[in-house]
């Protein structure tokens, strides 16, 4: 098929979808999500579908593409990006716009490569002494942890502008990417991070992370008390470069969920993405909407299912819902835009991928033909929803020029019990993520816990 033919098909598809949208909305405040790529509009596979997305001052464009300049690596795919404007607190002129910040519902807080905001001279966040917790007074630094790898750097105060929303003077983390950090990472932080402090656009595949997950702070009460006994220390206070001690950090100084600091649309987000065809797309453009039920453009349709996560910190499945596929139950399940695939255990799916060998420890799935499955997502409140998903051969996907894949899957190992609905889940959907503790519409119940809805 020639490129022009594909383009014509894409245009026809978009035009048709647009017509439907205009008919449904009376030409109101919506826009189209969109796709590009050789697989788009291919009649041989399940096609991509553009969907209508809200516009307005509480919305902004988001995109899955080949990432920030500086190199794209095999295995890096399905990363959702947004642009943010960051300013010195209170300033309208000392500002920078940073592109390719990963939009992540699996973490909380804004984290930026320090070099991206070097010109702003952002004021550091300083924690007061807390003798009971053994915290010295001094600049606050954070050792933020992923399952593998971590981020080290100071906290600073900044204004965030995104869409037409503002979060003023919020604590953010500056990921120290300087060659000689003013505060070298403590040994414990390096160990916690599996000797991999991610401090570059190439290691992060992003210039930063905008964490808009379900919690108001990246830590909470344990960090307020400085009680890190269950794992690695998150916050440090460093009176001098050579003397960092674990820090009790009041919640007001912890890295905050920026959404909670907006004036109005502060109780959650909606991520709207087009459906991506089996063969993938070289880019996928959607919309990030702030607020749930706060404006005419972010109401929850009656057809949407609201699934509360387990809100009991002592539960083995804290902050999770349940996914069931056939007779297999995954009690530790969650929806996460920061996971780049669907990660679950299914021993019947082949993992003998070339792209897994040597490098990708997580092991992609490589079935000989595309697999189509149906899952049931459920919560403890008795709500459930059915979801169809596909797993394609990762080798085949990675050998294409595409970077947005609806059917990329990886194993978690035998009987892991977790099911991560990563970015593939978001394609073709509007996914609502509420924030715990914020005012919510009648759909959510803070006493139970925060919720996903789709």
């Amino acid at each position: 098929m020639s490129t022009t033919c594909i383009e014509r098909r894409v245009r026809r598809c978009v035009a048709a979808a647009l017509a439907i949208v205009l008919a449904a909305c009376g030409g109101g405040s919506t826009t189209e999500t969109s796709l590009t790529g050789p697989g788009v509009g291919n009649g041989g596979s399940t096609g991509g579908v553009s969907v209508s997305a809200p516009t307005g001052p509480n919305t902004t464009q988001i995109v899955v593409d080949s990432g920030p300049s500086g190199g794209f690596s095999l295995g890096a795919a399905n990363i959702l990006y947004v642009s943010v404007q960051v300013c010195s607190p209170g300033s309208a002129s000392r500002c920078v716009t940073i592109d390719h910040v990963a939009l992540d519902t699996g973490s909380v807080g804004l984290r930026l490569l320090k070099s991206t905001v070097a010109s702003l001279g952002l004021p550091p966040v300083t924690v007061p002494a807390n003798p009971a917790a053994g915290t010295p007074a001094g600049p606050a630094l954070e050792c933020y942890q992923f399952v593998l790898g971590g981020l080290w750097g100071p906290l600073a105060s900044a204004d965030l502008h995104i869409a037409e929303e503002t979060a003023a003077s919020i604590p953010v983390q500056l990921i120290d990417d300087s060659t000689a950090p003013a505060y070298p990472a403590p040994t414990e932080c390096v160990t916690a991070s599996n000797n991999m402090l991610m401090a570059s656009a190439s290691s992060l595949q992003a210039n930063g992370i905008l964490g808009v997950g379900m919690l108001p702070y990246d830590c909470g009460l344990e960090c307020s008390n400085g009680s890190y006994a269950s794992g690695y220390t998150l916050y440090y206070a460093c009176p001098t470069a050579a003397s960092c001690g674990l820090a009790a950090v009041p919640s007001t100084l912890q890295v905050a969920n920026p959404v909670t600091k907006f004036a109005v649309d502060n109780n959650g987000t909606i991520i709207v993405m087009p459906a991506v065809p089996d063969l993938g797309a070289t880019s996928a453009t959607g919309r990030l909407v702030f607020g749930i039920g706060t404006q005419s453009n972010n109401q929850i349709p009656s057809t949407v299912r609201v699934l509360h996560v387990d809100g009991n910190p002592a539960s083995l499945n804290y902050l999770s819902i349940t996914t069931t596929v056939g007779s297999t139950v995954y009690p530790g399940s969650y929806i996460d835009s920061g996971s780049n695939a669907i990660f679950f255990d299914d021993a019947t799916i082949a993992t003998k991928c070339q792209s897994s060998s040597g490098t990708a420890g997580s092991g992609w799935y490589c079935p000989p033909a595309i697999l189509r499955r149906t899952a049931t997502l459920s919560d403890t409140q008795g709500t459930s929803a059915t979801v169809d998903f596909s797993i394609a051969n990762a080798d085949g996907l990675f050998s294409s020029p595409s970077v947005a894949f609806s059917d990329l899957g990886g194993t978690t190992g035998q009987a892991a019990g977790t099911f991560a609905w990563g970015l593939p889940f978001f394609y073709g959907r509007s996914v609502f993520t509420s924030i715990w503790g914020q005012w919510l519409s009648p759909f959510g119940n803070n006493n139970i816990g925060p919720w996903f809805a789709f």
Partner: protein
Amino acid sequence: MNRCRLLTPPRCLLGLAFVLCAPVAHAVLGAAEVTVQDDQARLHGMRRQALAVHALVTTHEITMSDGSSIREFVGPSGVVFAVAWSTRFKPNLQALLGQHAVSYNAAAADALRVPGIKRSVVLQRGDLVVHSAGHLTAFVGKAYLASQIPEGVRVDDLH
């Protein structure tokens, strides 16, 4: 040895194991059952014997004030053959895996050659298998020694 004679044989062995293992800090996976108490001390946790997942398995559960918990599974040989966790902070697997942390570190370094955020991984190196996942403030996972799983015990039961 006088005290040993006063104890029943299994308790004698436990005491002996404690003496032998005492200088080893936080060695757990692959080590003797008594090392569970090292973890309890390190984690400032409460320890109890949890419901058995299998007749051949003793499960020690350490719970912490923030809701986190770690379970350590001991087989008939008296060796901790698996650990599982559900924690608010990323757990210290260097301590939990003991001598097997070397294998974990090597496998982690391999996995980290692929850039980007890591939230769900399975690491295998030699006899060691580690499942690890985490989002927000919820880290969950398990690690086990494949050759040490008692006959009849399923990996599915260890959580």
